């Protein structure tokens, strides 16, 4: 690809973005809501019918990432508490 000055600042996707690839597995975690239990300050995970789900090993995220759409904790090592506009 050969690009002009104007393109550089507007429409050209950085080379590295083309190297990104999907996560190997998609895991859907078995809960639909989380609340904080007052006495323990622990998360309480519930399924669609409101039953408490024991998270155990399912919830702990791996070293960097697994792909889930439902579990924020499964995001990777980076990316939390970052705000590119303000950091």
């Amino acid at each position, binding site marked *: *690809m*050969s*690009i002009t000055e104007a393109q*550089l600042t507007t429409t*050209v*996707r*950085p*080379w*590295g*973005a*083309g*190297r*990104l*690839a*999907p*996560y*190997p597995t998609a895991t859907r975690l078995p*809960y639909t809501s*989380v*609340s*904080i239990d*007052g*006495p*323990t*300050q*622990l*998360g309480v*995970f519930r399924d669609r019918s409101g039953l408490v789900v024991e*998270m155990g*090993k399912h*919830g*702990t*995220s*791996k*070293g*960097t*990432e*697994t*792909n889930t*759409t439902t*579990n*924020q*904790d499964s*995001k*990777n*090592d*980076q*990316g*939390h*508490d*970052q*705000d590119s506009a*303000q*950091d």
Partner: protein
Amino acid sequence: MPTTEERPVLVVTEAEDVTADMVITELNRRDVPVVRFNPADIGGELTVSARFGTCPAPVVGQARTPSRIADLARVRAVYWRRPVWPTFHNSGLGDDDARFAAAQVRYGLAGTLYALDGPLWVNHPVNDAAADYKPAQLATAQRLGLTVPPTIVTNDPDEARQFITAHDQVIFKTLRWTLYERDGVQLTGWAEPVRADELDDSVRVTPHLFQARIDKAADVRVLMVGRRTFAVRIDCDLLDWRRDYSALSYTVVDLPAPLNKALHGVLDHFGLASGSFDLAVDRAGDYWWLELNPNGQWGWLEQETGLEMSAAFADLLTRGETA
């Protein structure tokens, strides 16, 4: 009724954080009061109120949740895990109001916590952020005696090609993870060899990081919690071990003392109480620096190895000091 906690540990994180739950469970065992909140809950379930210039203490006030009240002047430690900041994007506010609101939360809530004198931060977010720059990590690591793979950060395609040609195998790494979706599928960066002829002019758009591939025998993940070190060797046939967790085997190892000291030096340099390091060990048994994740994941490693990582975090937060 919320209860006011004596010398609480603040755990700042989202609700769906089972790693924080592991640490909170250990704090509960120690009868250490915990006040947990997520910045995104401001306005509804989270209230902060602090006064300055009104009494001898430079800052007094409270953070309140439905179940707990933290006396800000008495906070023992802050466990800064996975806070989510409100964006107000779905609040019905226009862009300008949303931007205004988001900034007021960050500078009002985080700013008040930054004003506190006493607490141990695990970790302070400003220090986390400063440590999250890979180029700064590489230079710091080498200054402290660690062995760093030859690396280039450049947006000059010719220099990048020369670097790749000059080394046996080279991988591309992102300088920073960002949420990235294509056709509804989430993508991320993976360590994979790159050839010089794969590069094109779009390297010029932003800096890119290319690194000589280490002929590694294994990876080593090191979690440091205060002065404690947990080192786990990860064996697999993968260049990037994140690709298949079922293919990994874990062995608890002891780091050579000079390496342990150097890694602590890196944390000290960045002002971090904790950090997760990725290292490689080559076939000669020498260790190579790969990167530091200041707020890295470790919960799965505790479950795989039985190492008492969450207890170490609880001990550190209980003491309220790193020494």
